[in-house]
């Protein structure tokens, strides 16, 4: 009797409960603990692997130049400074290029997601002539790298014309270079970066939603568009959000389309790609005779540029993640 009292209240209950369940409780608790430990180990390992290069970058970003050459300094700077950030801000034309990147990426990705959602729904739910051919085009969009058609597109936009209409009115073709118009047009017609993938994802998702949901809406007198907006869109929100995220991120870091279509604008990714040559000019006393900045220093400043590029995207992801979570409740209507 006394020994039993020595065991704490909840513990005693646990053992008693365990005995009552013929050892099942203990077994399940142990399994659960082992599983969650293995999960934690795996996740920690993988997360560490992803994060470690970033941490190293962050550590070095705060170092003064002499710390870079000091082999006793590894991660934590001995002479911490924020001066490097100021230099990178100057080199990348910081507030202006960031704002430009923000609004162009936002515009482009919204246009892309809207058009891709429409097309994906069209493929998933309707039956029309040449459907297979058009879907093959979607696959082609995924497979064909944009590099192959870059030159032709460039020429196309230099002398832009829609079936000779503009030439007939104005007397000559117009050049659309350096403006966002061509790229916005391409985004609106699903020809942006990796749009084939979004169409595919959305199509797969819409196909997976039971038809009875829509049929119920039709029976209740909903039109096609209304059903699409009120029934299908909320259900597909997680997929749409992830498409938007991809589109935004890829646009944000994209160099290829930006170089081709937005060359006149100050965009962060292009600024980042040419940071080394600008750095060489920045550190020389005479702007016409660039010097070569030491490699360690170059790498340090590039890392800062990369970090600055990533931070807004991570923040965006944290916000978008909430939409993922909320959408579970909505898709509960699924059976």
């Amino acid at each position, binding site marked *: 009797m006394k020994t039993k009292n020595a065991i704490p209240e909840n513990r005693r209950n646990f053992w008693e409960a365990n005995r009552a369940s013929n050892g099942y409780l203990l077994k399940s608790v142990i399994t659960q603990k082992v599983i969650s430990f293995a999960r934690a180990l795996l996740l920690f390992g993988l997360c560490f*692997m992803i994060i470690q290069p970033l941490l190293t970058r962050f550590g070095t970003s705060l170092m003064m130049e002499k710390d870079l050459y000091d082999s006793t300094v590894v991660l934590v700077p001995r002479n911490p400074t924020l001066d490097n950030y100021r230099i990178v801000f100057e080199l990348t034309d910081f507030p202006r290029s960031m704002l430009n990147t923000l609004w162009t990426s936002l515009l482009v990705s919204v246009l892309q997601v809207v058009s891709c959602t429409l097309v994906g729904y069209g493929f998933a739910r*309707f039956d*029309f002539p040449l459907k297979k051919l*058009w879907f093959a085009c979607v696959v082609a969009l995924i497979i064909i790298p944009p590099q*192959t058609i870059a030159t032709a597109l460039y020429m196309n936009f230099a002398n832009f014309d829609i079936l000779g209409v503009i030439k007939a009115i104005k007397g000559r073709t117009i050049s659309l270079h350096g403006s966002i118009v061509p790229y916005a047009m391409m985004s609106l017609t699903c*020809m942006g970066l990796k749009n084939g993938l979004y169409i595919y994802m959305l199509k797969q998702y819409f196909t997976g939603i039971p038809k009875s949901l829509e049929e119920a809406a039709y029976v209740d007198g909903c039109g096609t568009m209304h059903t699409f907006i009120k029934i299908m869109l909320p259900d597909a929100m997680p997929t749409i959000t992830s498409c938007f995220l*991809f589109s935004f991120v890829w646009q944000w870091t*994209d160099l290829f389309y930006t170089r081709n279509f937005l060359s006149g604008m100050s965009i962060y990714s292009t600024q980042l790609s040419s940071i080394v040559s600008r750095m060489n000019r920045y550190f020389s006393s005479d702007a016409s005779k660039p010097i070569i900045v030491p490699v360690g220093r170059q790498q340090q400043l590039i890392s800062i540029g990369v970090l600055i590029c990533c931070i807004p995207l991570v923040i965006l992801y944290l916000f978008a993640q909430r939409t993922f979570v909320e959408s*579970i409740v909505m898709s509960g209507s699924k059976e």
Partner: protein
Amino acid sequence: MMTQKKIKSRPNHWGFRESILTFIPGTSVYKTMRAKNARKGVLFIMPLIIGFLVFMAKPLGESLLMSMSNVQMKAGEGYSRVFTGIANYQYAFSVDPYFNQRLVEEIGRMAVNAIATLVLSFVIAVILNQDFKGRALARAIFFLPVILSSGVLPGIESQNEFYNMMQGISDEIANASGINLSASLEELLSVSGIGSGVFDVLFTMIDAIYDIVMASGIQIIVFLSGLQAISPSLYEAADIEGCTAWESFWKITFPIVSPLLLVNCIYTIIDFFMKNDNRVMERINEVMYSQFRFGEAAAMSWIYFGVALLFISVSSFIITRGVRYYED
């Protein structure tokens, strides 16, 4: 009964006459439900039709023509083109010293990496979908590869020739001094002599784990968004009926997410084929920009697309066998 069967057997088929009449008002076909729906569908995919015709088809045709011609750049703008048939394709296969070999190598590497990427991303997505402390943080971290492997970022630090040289030297030093833990482990396991072929594959996967994780960012999110859409009540019902977690994984989770497996598989293959560090791509760029053999380079890239297409169709054929859609 017979007629019903007939209709059901070819529900998606559109005859030529019917297709045309669908879009002409006043005809008998125009007013049918089927035609109405078809017009709605075409309206939905209109952006794609316009975009593809205007921005894709024409440049693509030019590229295909180029692959079958002898292309010479002219001093001014533009180029001259002489049709030569399949000569460029013959060049790619039988004359170019590197193309064949690299193509085969890359395909082998792709097969291993694609499978590893798919499995790893699926496992991680399932784990990230469970409930545990710090889930939001873990999800945010697994999103980082999407950012870090996109656009300007992956190449930017290795652009620097000098830096690469230094890195090569430091790797060599590390190998020579024997600090490499995984290498010594490899040695130990291969000496023990159990199925060395299996171990070899495993080792290449483990060595490439960073690349694999970096390449699986998108796949994780795609799987995760699919997993999130599964209603919890399904699991509840299964649990009440006495399903174990293992069973409900294979009976509920896997079938519902399997359509996304196809997307991910295709994406993984393409991503691998189009990567900047891919050696076939390197060769194509070399032929194009250093040797100025535009026609030959175009032919090589078409062969490359052909191979990619072949892989995609084979894998989607295999996967669609196992994919189940919701059917009422």
